[in-house]
C-alpha cells in the first residue's frame, strides 16, 4: 500500500499546517544546492523561476528552441480560481468539490483541496506579472463558465489564456536567467534520469543541435514534461509532446499512476484525411454560448452527410440538442467525458453529420441572435431588423471568440458565423502520470513530478480550465515549499559529481540505444509506426473500452514494438541535428506506454470519468463506478515488459465528500 504522506488534521488546515511544519533550507545553504527542471511549460517555468528566486541553482531543459514554446502555450479557454468575484456562490470548498466530483471520485482529497486554496493566489500573481486577462468596462476582471460547474470562475484572455500565462511564467523565468540563477538549456532532451544511492541525482541530456550527450548532476530533479496524449498519434498535443522523460523515470523506479485515464475532449475539429498530423481543439469556452446538436431524423443526417441538405435548413423541431435533452441541469456544459461519450453515442447511432459520420454540430445561431438583441436594447434600437440583430450579435461573438472562429475557418474553409461548426471528440489531456505523494515526490527519492506529468489532482476526468490552474499551482506555490523538506538533508552534501559510475553507465546506455537506431537496417519511417500505434490505441483504449479489445491491443502493441525495432529507418547522423532520431526515441517509449495503458484499462473493471468500460454502465449508458472494489489509485511498478508491470494501490479515502453516482441531469 502506497503512503500519500497526506498531513493529519482537518482538510482545510492541512496545507497551512504542513507548510508550518516542514523543514526549510536557509538562504545561504540554498546557494549550495542544485535543482534540475525538465520542461518549461506552466509547471516547469514557474517551478524553475520560483526555485531560482528562493536561491537554488537551477538548470532548466526544454526540447523546443525557446522555453516560451512549451505546449501550455496552446491552452485556450481559461484558468479556474475560487475568487467569487461574480458573487455567484463560489468558494474554495465548491471548487474542491466540483473538481473531485468532476474527476468521478478518483482523486486525492488533500491535493485537490490544496489546489483550490492556492488557486486565488495564482490570479493575483499573474496580474502582478502583467498578464493581460480579459476585463469588464469597470476595469475589473471578467469571468466565464466551463463544463461541470454552475458558477463563473474561469479567468481568461480571449482564446489564448495558456499563451498569456505561459508568457508570464516565461518572463519570470527570463528574469532569473538574466541573473544567472537559472541556466537554460534550449533544444535539449532528457534521455535518462540518474539514480545514485537510491536518490535521483541528475539526468543524461542530449543537445539536439550537436547530438552531444551531456551528464548533468543535481540534488533533486523535477519532471514537468507534460502529458502523453500523443500515444494516440492524433491528439491536440503539440508534435513534440512526448512521454519519454516520465517513462525513463518509470523505468528507473517511479510508479506510473492511472495511465489509462485519458481525456477525450468533445470539441475538436474532426479528422479530415490520412495525412493528418494533429487535431485542433476548439475551446470548451465555446460551449458557454454554442449549442450542440445533430439532426433528429436519420434521413436528414444522411442528406447532410451527402451534402444535399444544409444544416441551416433543418427546422428547429427536427434538431436533437442531445446534451440539453439528456442533461437539462448542465445542458451543453456537462463535463468533457460526458459530452464526448454523448457525441459518440449519436454518431454510432447514425446521426453523424460529416462524410466520415463522425461529427456533430456546434451552433452559434441562437447565441448570435441573443447577443444581437441585447446589443440592440443597449443601443436603444427600436424594432431592429433580423439582419441588424445578427450583425450586432456577430460582433459580440467575434469579440469573445474571434480567434477561435478564425482558426476554424482557416482549417476547414467553412464560415462558422454563417453555418454551424462541425466538431468531434479528440484526445486532449492525460490525467494519469507519475505517481506522486502530497509533496509531489515520486516513488524515487529526490525525483519530483509537476503539472500534467503527475497524476495527482484530476482523478478520472479533468474539468476545463483546471490544467492551467494545476500547472501553476504546482510550480509557483507547492513544489517550491515541499522540495525544501527533502533538500534540507542535502545542505552538507556538496556538489554532486557527474563522473561517477552511475552517470557513466547511464550515458553509455543512452549512446548505445541511439547508435542502434541509426545503424538499424530498416525501410519504414518512424511516423508509420506511430500512426499504427495511434490507431490501435484509439480503437481499443479510446472513448469506450472492453476486455476483449484491450486484451488484443496488448498483444498487437507488443508485436508492433518488435516490428518497430526490426524495420524502422532512422536517417541522418548521430552527431548533428536529427529530428527523426529524436522522434524514434519518443515513439519507442510510446510503444511501451501504450501497452501499460491497455493493461491498466483492462484491470480497472469499472467505468469512471474518461475510462468507460462497456461492461460497466448504467441502464442509461452512464459510467458505472464500482466504489467497493476500485476506490484506489493504480500505481504500476516497472518489471521488464510493460504487461508485466506490478500493481501497487493507494486507497482513496473520502472524509469530506460523499461518494455519489455523478449526475448532471
Amino acid at each position, binding site marked *: 500500500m502506497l503512503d500519500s504522506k497526506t498531513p493529519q488534521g482537518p482538510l482545510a488546515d492541512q496545507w497551512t499546517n504542513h507548510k508550518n511544519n516542514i523543514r526549510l533550507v536557509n538562504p545561504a545553504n540554498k546557494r549550495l544546492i542544485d535543482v534540475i527542471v525538465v520542461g518549461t511549460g506552466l509547471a516547469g517555468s514557474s517551478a524553475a523561476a520560483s526555485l531560482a528566486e528562493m536561491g537554488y541553482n537551477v538548470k532548466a531543459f526544454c526540447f523546443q528552441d525557446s522555453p516560451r514554446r512549451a505546449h501550455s502555450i496552446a491552452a485556450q479557454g481559461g484558468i479556474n480560481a475560487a475568487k467569487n468575484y461574480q458573487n455567484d456562490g463560489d468558494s474554495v470548498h465548491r471548487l474542491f468539490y466540483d473538481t473531485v466530483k468532476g474527476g468521478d471520485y478518483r482523486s486525492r482529497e488533500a491535493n485537490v483541496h490544496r489546489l483550490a486554496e492556492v488557486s486565488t493566489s495564482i490570479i493575483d500573481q499573474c496580474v502582478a506579472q502583467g498578464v493581460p486577462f480579459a476585463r469588464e468596462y469597470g476595469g475589473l*476582471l471578467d469571468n466565464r463558465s466551463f463544463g461541470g460547474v454552475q458558477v463563473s470562475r474561469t479567468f481568461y484572455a480571449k482564446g489564448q489564456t495558456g499563451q498569456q500565462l505561459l508568457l508570464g511564467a516565461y518572463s*519570470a523565468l527570463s528574469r532569473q536567467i538574466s541573473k544567472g540563477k537559472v541556466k537554460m538549456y534550449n533544444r535539449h532532451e532528457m534521455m535518462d534520469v540518474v539514480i545514485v544511492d537510491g536518490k535521483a541525482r541528475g539526468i543524461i541530456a542530449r543537445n539536439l543541435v550537436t547530438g552531444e550527450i551531456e551528464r548533468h548532476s543535481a540534488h533533486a530533479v523535477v519532471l514537468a514534461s507534460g502529458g502523453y496524449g500523443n500515444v494516440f498519434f492524433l491528439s491536440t498535443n503539440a508534435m513534440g509532446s512526448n512521454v519519454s522523460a516520465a517513462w525513463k523515470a518509470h523505468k528507473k523506479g517511479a510508479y506510473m499512476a492511472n495511465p489509462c485515464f485519458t481525456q477525450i475532449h468533445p470539441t475538436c475539429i474532426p479528422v479530415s484525411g490520412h495525412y493528418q498530423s494533429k487535431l485542433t481543439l476548439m475551446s470548451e469556452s465555446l460551449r458557454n454560448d454554442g449549442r450542440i446538436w445533430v439532426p433528429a431524423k436519420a434521413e436528414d443526417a444522411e442528406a447532410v452527410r451527402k451534402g444535399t441538405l444544409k444544416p441551416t435548413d433543418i427546422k428547429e423541431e427536427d434538431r436533437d440538442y442531445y446534451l440539453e435533452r439528456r442533461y437539462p441541469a448542465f445542458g451543453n456544459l456537462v463535463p468533457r467525458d460526458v459530452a464526448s461519450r454523448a457525441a459518440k453515442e449519436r454518431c454510432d447511432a447514425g446521426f453523424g453529420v460529416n462524410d466520415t459520420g463522425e461529427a456533430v454540430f456546434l451552433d452559434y445561431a441562437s447565441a448570435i441572435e441573443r447577443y444581437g438583441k441585447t446589443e440592440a436594447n443597449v443601443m436603444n434600437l427600436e424594432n431592429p431588423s433580423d439582419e441588424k440583430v445578427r450583425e450586432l450579435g456577430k460582433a459580440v461573438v467575434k469579440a469573445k471568440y474571434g480567434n477561435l472562429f478564425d482558426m476554424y475557418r482557416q482549417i476547414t474553409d467553412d464560415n462558422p458565423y454563417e453555418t454551424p461548426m462541425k466538431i468531434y471528440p479528440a484526445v486532449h489531456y492525460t490525467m494519469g502520470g507519475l505517481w506522486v505523494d502530497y509533496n509531489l515526490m515520486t516513488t524515487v527519492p529526490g525525483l519530483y513530478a509537476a503539472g500534467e506529468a503527475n497524476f495527482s489532482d484530476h482523478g478520472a476526468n479533468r474539468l476545463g480550465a483546471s490544467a492551467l490552474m494545476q500547472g501553476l499551482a504546482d510550480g509557483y506555490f507547492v513544489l517550491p515549499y515541499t522540495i525544501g523538506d527533502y533538500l534540507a538533508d542535502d545542505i552538507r552534501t556538496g556538489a554532486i559529481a557527474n563522473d561517477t559510475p552511475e552517470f557513466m553507465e547511464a550515458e553509455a546506455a543512452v549512446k548505445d540505444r541511439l547508435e542502434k537506431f541509426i545503424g538499424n537496417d530498416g525501410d519504414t519511417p518512424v511516423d508509420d509506426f506511430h500512426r499504427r500505434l495511434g490507431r490501435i490505441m484509439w480503437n481499443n483504449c479510446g472513448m469506450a473500452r472492453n476486455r476483449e479489445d484491450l486484451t488484443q491491443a496488448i498483444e498487437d502493441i507488443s508485436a508492433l514494438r518488435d516490428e518497430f525495432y526490426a524495420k524502422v529507418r532512422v536517417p541522418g547522423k548521430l552527431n548533428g541535428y536529427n529530428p527523426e532520431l529524436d522522434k524514434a526515441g519518443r515513439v519507442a517509449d510510446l510503444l511501451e506506454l501504450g501497452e501499460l495503458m491497455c493493461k491498466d484499462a483492462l484491470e480497472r473493471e469499472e467505468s469512471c470519468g474518461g475510462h468507460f468500460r462497456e461492461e460497466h454502465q448504467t441502464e442509461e449508458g452512464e459510467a458505472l463506478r464500482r466504489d467497493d472494489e476500485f476506490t484506489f489509485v493504480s500505481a504500476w511498478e516497472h518489471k521488464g515488459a510493460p504487461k508485466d508491470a506490478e500493481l501497487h494501490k493507494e486507497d482513496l479515502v473520502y472524509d469530506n465528500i460523499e461518494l455519489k453516482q455523478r449526475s448532471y441531469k
Partner: protein
Amino acid sequence: MNLTLKVWRQDGPEDKGRLETHQLSGVTGDMSFLEMMDVLNDKIIREGGDPVVFDHDCREGICGMCSMFINGEAHGPGRGVTTCQLHMRSFKDGDTITIEPWRASAFPVVKDLAVDRSAFDRVIQAGGYVSVNTSGETLDANAIPIPKADADEAFNAATCIGCGACVATCKNASAMLFVSAKVSQFALLPQGQPERKRRVTRMVEQMDKEGFGNCTNTGACAVECPKGIDLSNIARMNRDFLSSSLTGE
C-alpha cells in the same frame, strides 16, 4: 495536386547552402503546409535520403516555432496565419513553391529551414518582465482596476508569438515590432510602470547588441505578422525610449 518544391538545404551555420528541387504529388487542399512537408519527408526517407529539417510544434498557430519563407513571404501567402495554419488550398496544381529559412544575421541557420532565434530570448531577459517574486503574496487581482481599452490593447501587444516573421520580412532585419510589442504590453499596464524606463532602455540596447537592423518605417513587418501586431507599438516604444534617454535612466 502536383507540385515542384525548391527547398533550402544547409548543413549548419557555416555551410553555404543551396536550393534542392523535389517533385511531389498527391497533395490535397485540406493539408496544412507542414503536412505537405511531412509527405515530402516521408518520401525522402523511404528513398533513403536525408529529410528536410524544419521547426514546428503546436501546429495550431500559437507556439511560434514554425518559420518558413515561402515564395518570398514570411509564412507564405495569406495574412494573419503562421506556416502551420497555411493550407494547400492556397496553391494550385502545377505550382512551383520556393521554401527558405528566415534570413537575418541575428538568426543563424541551425539546419535547412530551422534557425536560431535565441536572440529574442536574450532581449526578453534584458527586461521583458515585471520584477515581482512569485510568492503569491501580492495585491488582490482586482485591487487596481484597469480600463478595458488599456487591458485590451496590452493583450493585443502580448499576443506576439515570437516567431520572427517581422525580422525575416524587414529589409533591414529589424526586430522593432517584436521588441515594441513586449515593451507596449507593460507600458499599457499599471504593473509595468515602475520599470518602464529601465525596461525600454535595456531591451533596445540588447536588441542592438544582437545585430538586428534599424527600423526605417516601411511597415512590412506588420503586414506579415501572423498575429497582427500593430505598428503603433513601435511608435510607443520610440517615445518611451526617447523619454527615458532624456531623463537619464
